[in-house]
């Protein structure tokens, strides 16, 4: 079964996925809303940036992050000069990497959902005295609920399965930055196949259950809408 190190890795993985998803929802919602509504000519540039983690090898992203967050990088250097620690090989560094790596999985479903809501319901709300912020929270967000569900689950599940970025910027520090995917890799390297089986099976099951949930719920929402 799981040994103590495996359980710690599992806990770190879940903590990372939860924090990453929450940060992405908070930062991604306004960005997705803006992308869905703007008529800015160069919006496609930003969309390409958001989609970049989809096509980049995680090691490339991890490498640049390592440089940026390390003691000689712009972010790490700044942290150091302010009396802090560089972020490379820390949990915080892991969160930053995960947020960037999972960004498209949260922003794209949200943007699609906001676009599907369209302008009309918001215009209706405006003629019923709702201010722009009021319309956003009482009309746009509830109508985009399937998008929020998809974004949450995909962002969460994708962070769970992350390997390359984590390895590059997190290192492999047990109890600090060692996540499940890396623990599995270690077990296989050490020919501990039973442990690898338990962790792999656990991750497979968790991911499958999450995706089943999202597709089932989204189907229900679709049916419920005219």
């Amino acid at each position, binding site marked *: 079964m799981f040994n103590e190190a495996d359980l710690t890795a599992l806990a770190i993985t879940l903590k990372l996925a939860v924090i990453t998803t929450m940060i992405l929802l908070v930062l991604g919602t306004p960005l997705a809303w803006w992308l869905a509504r703007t008529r800015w000519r160069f919006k496609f540039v930003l969309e390409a940036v958001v989609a970049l983690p989809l096509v980049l090898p995680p090691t490339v992203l991890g490498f640049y992050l390592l440089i940026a967050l390390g003691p000689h990088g712009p972010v790490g250097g700044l942290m150091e000069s302010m009396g802090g620690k560089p972020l490379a090989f820390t949990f915080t560094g892991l969160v930053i990497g995960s947020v960037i790596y999972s960004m498209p999985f949260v922003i794209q479903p949200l943007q699609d959902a906001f676009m599907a809501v369209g302008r009309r319901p918001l215009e209706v709300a405006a*003629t019923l005295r709702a201010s722009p912020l009021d319309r956003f929270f009482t009309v746009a967000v509830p109508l985009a609920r399937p998008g929020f569900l998809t974004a949450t689950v995909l962002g969460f599940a994708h962070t769970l399965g992350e390997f390359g970025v984590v390895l590059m910027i997190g290192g492999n520090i047990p109890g600090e930055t060692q996540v499940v995917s890396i623990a599995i890799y270690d077990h296989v390297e050490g020919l501990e196949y039973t442990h690898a089986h338990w962790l792999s099976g656990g991750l497979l099951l968790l991911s499958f259950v999450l995706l089943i949930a999202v597709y089932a719920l989204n189907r229900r929402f679709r049916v*419920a809408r*005219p």
Partner: protein
Amino acid sequence: MIDVRFHLRRTDFSLDLDLSIPAQGITAVFGPSGCGKTTLLRLLAGLEHCRNGFLKVGNLTWQDGNRFVLPHRRPIAYVFQEASLFAHLSVQRNLEYGVKRVPATERKVSMQKAIELLGIGHLLKRKPDTLSGGERQRVAIARALAVSPRLLLMDEPLAALDAERKQEIMPYIESLHDELDIPVIYVSHSHDEVARLANHLVLMQDGKIKANGDVHEIFTRLDLPLAHASDAAAIIDAQVIEHDTNFHLTHLEFSGGQIAVPHKELPLGSHVRLQLAARDVSLTLEHQSGTSILNIFPATVDAITHEGGAQVTVRLIAGGVALLSRITNKSAVELDLQPGKAVYAQVKSVALLN
């Protein structure tokens, strides 16, 4: 009054509007698709913005050179062409959405009153996707009324509905005028809806105002297209004066005379609106006696225009009310019709509009 000055240039479309319309009753904005009717309504609501526009409703200026009141700060309500209910809210919550956002002191139409007027009490618990098209539009109208608007904007609210649903909703819209003193601007491209509902009429074409005035007058003005259409008609407001139980007739009176129609269950003294199609009105020089036509009244020829081909349209005045008659040019020549000539109008059939 509502004073409007909007000038808009877009690549495929331009709008030049400068008009005043009464801030009471139902004003219909009538014109072909793409003439700018909906844009006018959206400009009134503040959903579109045009630079250097001017809009004053009563004593409130909503737009001028340096002011633009945002849509949610305008005391209006808007009924859109297609169902516009919030899919995530029940009928009741849809109604409450607007009401909750209106300060209590400005609530003149209670939600209960709006529910009653539109007959939707039995739908409150339902979700919009379980309603028929007609029911959805009734809820949308009730939701609009419940914010106690100072101006109600309706953008072809019946266009997406079949004939039966239209008949279902029309009486509700008619009753708005009598029940609540809310001015309505009603965009339509349906001749029937305008004839039935409007007090005032604005004709639009290619982004411009062709005419703006009393609906009776615009329908019968020979310099405007409505009087030349194949379904040209005069609109007459009359009053029920008598029921003839023997012959199952109801007698109506207007300032030009009396009109008999098949019996209608209406209280004496009630007001009705009639439509007299130009092609159903024939002319004689003397009062005919041996005729099956019941409705004959004296009138004076006001003007005549050729329709091209065999027909002419004659504008008549009967007791101050304008009528139209579509007859052949040959008849017009043989009767020697001239402006000012006294004739008798024989009306073959009359349509009761409400």
